[in-house]
């Protein structure tokens, strides 16, 4: 396939100055089911598409609360993501212990970036095969942070990662001007519409396969599932499906 002699180890530079193992880990993230995050002036929302191995199993949890003012959503290897979510939970609680106040989201992003970077440089580890969206609210307002296995950590107005996420990003880029002044309910609808664009035509969002996390001013992080999701899905179902689907995105891998 892509094999070349510079891709067997994370700690090897290719002659062009690239790290192939790290780039492959980014591919792992792109195969996980999609997740979308957007923010307004006052709120940040993350929505995620959950997968089930078969009809008998439950859907994999994708959104975690990490503190009362922040939550994360995961795309990629979910077990790697859970480790990172636990890391962030620990960062949040130790900051609270040290400073008696919630951790600023920027500091959380910096800690995360350093942890991810170490896994791209030091021998004996592999990069995390996972991307994470952090939704948080602090004294500087609402934040959406995007991370990936190459340790690129960046603050966004709105973004999407995971399988066919390009379709969601296309929706977000078309509507980004509207987010700033949106109400929490409108934000959720925008996020769900973007998420729906990542689905093939024969599938749809349902109360079982969708989760929603929201945090904002005077509103601690809340994870909506099942019945609470259905209310928002009803609003989305009145919008017609866009036919534009991303081209060239890989088929999702079952995980």
């Amino acid at each position, binding site marked *: 396939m892509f094999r070349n*002699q510079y891709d067997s180890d994370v700690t090897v530079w290719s002659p062009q100055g690239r790290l192939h193992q790290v780039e492959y880990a980014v591919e792992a993230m792109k195969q996980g089911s999609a997740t979308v995050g957007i923010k307004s002036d006052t709120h940040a929302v993350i929505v995620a598409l959950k997968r089930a191995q078969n009809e008998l199993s439950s859907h994999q949890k994708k959104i975690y609360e990490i503190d009362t003012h922040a939550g994360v959503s995961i795309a990629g290897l979910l077990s790697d993501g859970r480790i990172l979510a636990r890391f962030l939970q620990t960062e949040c609680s130790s900051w609270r212990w040290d400073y008696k106040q919630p951790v600023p989201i920027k500091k959380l992003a910096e800690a995360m970036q350093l942890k991810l970077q170490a896994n791209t440089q030091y021998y004996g580890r592999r990069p995390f095969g996972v991307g994470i969206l952090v939704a948080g609210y602090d004294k500087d307002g609402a934040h959406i942070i995007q991370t990936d296995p190459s340790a690129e950590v960046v603050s966004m107005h709105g973004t999407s990662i995971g399988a066919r996420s390009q379709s969601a*990003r296309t929706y977000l880029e078309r509507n980004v001007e509207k987010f700033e002044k949106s109400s929490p309910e409108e934000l959720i609808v925008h996020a769900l519409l973007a998420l729906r664009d990542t689905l093939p035509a024969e599938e749809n969002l349902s109360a079982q396969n969708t989760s929603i996390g929201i945090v904002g001013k005077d509103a601690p992080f809340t994870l909506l599932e099942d019945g609470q999701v259905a209310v928002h899905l009803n609003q989305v179902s009145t919008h017609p499906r866009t036919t534009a689907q991303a081209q060239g995105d890989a088929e999702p891998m079952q995980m």
Partner: protein
Amino acid sequence: MSSIGTGYDLAASTFSPDGRIFQVEYAQKAVDNAGTMIAIRGKNGIVMVADKVISSKLYTDNANPRMFNVNDNVGVGVAGNYPDGFSLKNYAYGEAMKWLKDYREPMPVQNISNAVAEYIHIHTLGISRPFGAGAFFVAWNKQSGGRLFLVEPSGLNYEYKAWAVGKHRQAAKAEIEKLKIDELDMQQLVKEAARIIMAVRDESKDKNVQIEMGWVGEHTNGKYEEVPEDVVTAAEEWATAKLDEDDMED
């Protein structure tokens, strides 16, 4: 490259038969291929300027800054692989903090760049991969004037009057050499730096690019600072006009 496929280029712990360490050279490539960054020492201060590609409007403003304070007096500008650069900045910050705790005074710029150079050098010995990033360190004070250092992925650490790294470094250095930089005051320096970084852009490839600037000098009282947004915008406007004018003459 003749090195490829010989097996002497797979680890930083391996010398090639003619005495080269290819892994370090490849890491340098990561810097060479990244966005251009320039630092220039003028009459009474130093300015750093970086060119950054903004690939989507979904990014927040200045989402990935390349320039930071190490302490109040010293600024760092990282070029190359961003996460590696961020890690270097974090190490520099930690060292400066340790120095402050031990000596109760801010760590001088030369000591910072030396400490970072040693740290980078350890990564060229083969235990882990070399850093794919380089770092400018800048400072200014009344006694010694402006000082500008560059630490490279090999661990080399030189002091410069002015230097450029990244994609268009050669063209940028040629432009810098045309100037009498020792005579430029801060205002002229910022303008010329903006002009150079814009002039060396490849107009067909470098789209949606943005300038980031940092400075330190007499006017900031020796404190390293981000250049205010309106000053950057004014410099860009001046540079655009100047470049158009030059085009007309051609």
